[in-house]
């Protein structure tokens, strides 16, 4: 039967660019996106050592504006966006009434009464619907521009020298988790010093129709700088080394922020009721039922998502993400375990194809970028 579509697959506006670069494309969060170009390891190393260019057009961009925008967002999210100075951003989450995580977000304050909420692709509809519902009755309007905006990120230590020549935004003055309006390659853009790689870098929001121009300008500026186009594969290994959670792996509706080690993000003292507050106060009081930890596998084998984790004969949890760390050269993983097994130095076992393989609990992140001198 024609005309009945189960779900819509969106294509990044840059899909032809990716095809021309020989990218492997995959469906991710309802979007056709590049998984890799030259290879995940190559791209991963380019970002750690030089720079990488990412198409993140699948991410959701939701603008909230109005005299009560800050207050309405404070009631809708676990953070307090009213506390943000104009031009600054913070990490946030959309909570369910039971304290579970519906999505993790970045909230940018663009003006006194204007905010940008960036959501994961797979959840952007959920976030959009929830915000529409939670903002109702407030003097704040929601404008979901997810399909109309593209997002391109330049990440890595050379990102300043790649983006700098193209923009009128003062990059030296743009702090980590700050955002500024300006032009990049002549295109009106929002430039944020944020990312998901553990490196310095920028995320650039533009209208979808201008994304092709922006991509071409950045590629050209990255020539001679060793910058590579990077896919979602490298983005995943980079964020895992940096100890950053991925929604769907570490975060889901059955997990609360305290369990995910993100209790500091939840502002219980913001002086106003918000969705999930009562449940989260209880968790803060009583302690989480499980804890997210970093693991380094000490024997042969790679821990993968879903593998069981035990302490002796006692099952204690499961792996949420795992790979061979390209930077450290050892198998790393994140896992939920019982709180009593979460202490760094604890030796646990990951069950890999029926074999118990020793893994040590280590503090997150696995990788921290060297401080610039």
């Amino acid at each position: 039967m024609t005309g009945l579509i189960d779900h819509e697959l969106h294509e990044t506006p840059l899909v032809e660019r990716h095809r021309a670069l020989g990218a492997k494309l995959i469906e991710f969060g309802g979007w056709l996106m590049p998984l890799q170009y030259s290879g995940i390891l190559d791209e991963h190393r380019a970002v750690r050592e030089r720079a990488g260019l990412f198409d993140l057009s699948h991410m959701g961009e939701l603008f909230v504006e109005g005299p009560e925008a800050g207050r309405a967002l404070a009631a809708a999210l676990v953070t307090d966006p009213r506390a943000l100075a104009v031009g600054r951003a913070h990490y946030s989450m959309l909570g369910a009434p039971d304290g579970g995580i519906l999505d993790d977000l970045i909230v940018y304050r663009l003006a006194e009464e204007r905010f940008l909420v960036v959501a994961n692709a797979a959840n952007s509809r959920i976030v959009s619907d929830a915000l529409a519902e939670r903002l109702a009755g407030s003097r704040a309007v929601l404008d979901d521009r997810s399909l109309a905006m593209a997002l391109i990120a330049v990440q890595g230590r050379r990102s300043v020298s790649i983006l700098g020549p193209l923009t009128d935004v003062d990059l030296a003055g743009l702090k980590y988790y700050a955002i500024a309006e300006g032009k990049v390659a002549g295109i009106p853009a929002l430039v944020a010093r944020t990312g998901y790689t553990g490196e310095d870098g920028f995320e650039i929001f533009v209208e979808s129709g201008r994304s092709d121009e922006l991509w071409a300008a950045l590629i050209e500026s990255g020539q001679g700088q060793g910058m590579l186009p990077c896919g979602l594969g490298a983005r995943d290994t980079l964020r895992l080394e940096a100890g950053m959670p991925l929604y769907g792996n570490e975060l889901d509706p059955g997990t609360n922020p305290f369990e995910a080690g993100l209790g500091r993000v939840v502002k219980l003292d913001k002086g106003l009721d918000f969705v999930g507050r009562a449940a989260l106060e209880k968790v803060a009081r009583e302690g989480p039922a499980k804890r997210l930890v970093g693991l380094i596998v000490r024997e042969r084998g790679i821990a993968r998502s879903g593998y069981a984790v035990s302490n002796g004969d006692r099952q204690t949890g499961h792996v949420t993400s795992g790979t061979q760390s390209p930077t450290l050269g050892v198998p790393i993983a994140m896992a939920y375990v019982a709180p009593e097994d979460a202490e760094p130095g604890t030796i646990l076992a990951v069950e890999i194809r029926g074999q118990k393989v020793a893994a040590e609990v280590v503090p997150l992140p696995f990788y921290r970028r060297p401080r610039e001198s």
Partner: protein
Amino acid sequence: MVPTDLRYTKDHEWVRVEDDVATVGITSYAADQLGDIVFVELPSQGSSVEQFATFGVVESVKAVSDLYAPLGGEVIEANTELSSKPELVNSDPYGAGWMLRIRVGDAGQLGELLQPDAYDELTATS
């Protein structure tokens, strides 16, 4: 396209038979599909493998894939170099990236494998 002196499985392993010894690996197509290979788990010398049964695992950065034996027999050698250099499977899948040498039990099993042109056809349409 693929080497013509080899036989193939539909699961993308190749085998080269010389006398009663079969050398086994994965095809260039498989290595490309997997991406950067970071871990290879192979059976020990002296163990036996059955035709089309799993004999080991290959892991790329992103995924885990089973390896299937093109022929049954006794493992006379596993490529131990792959434990420290799994990337050889990507860089030289038909050469230094070989995985197993098997003493073939039943040479008749060769007839159940794909000829090079049939394997080419399989990967062209998938």
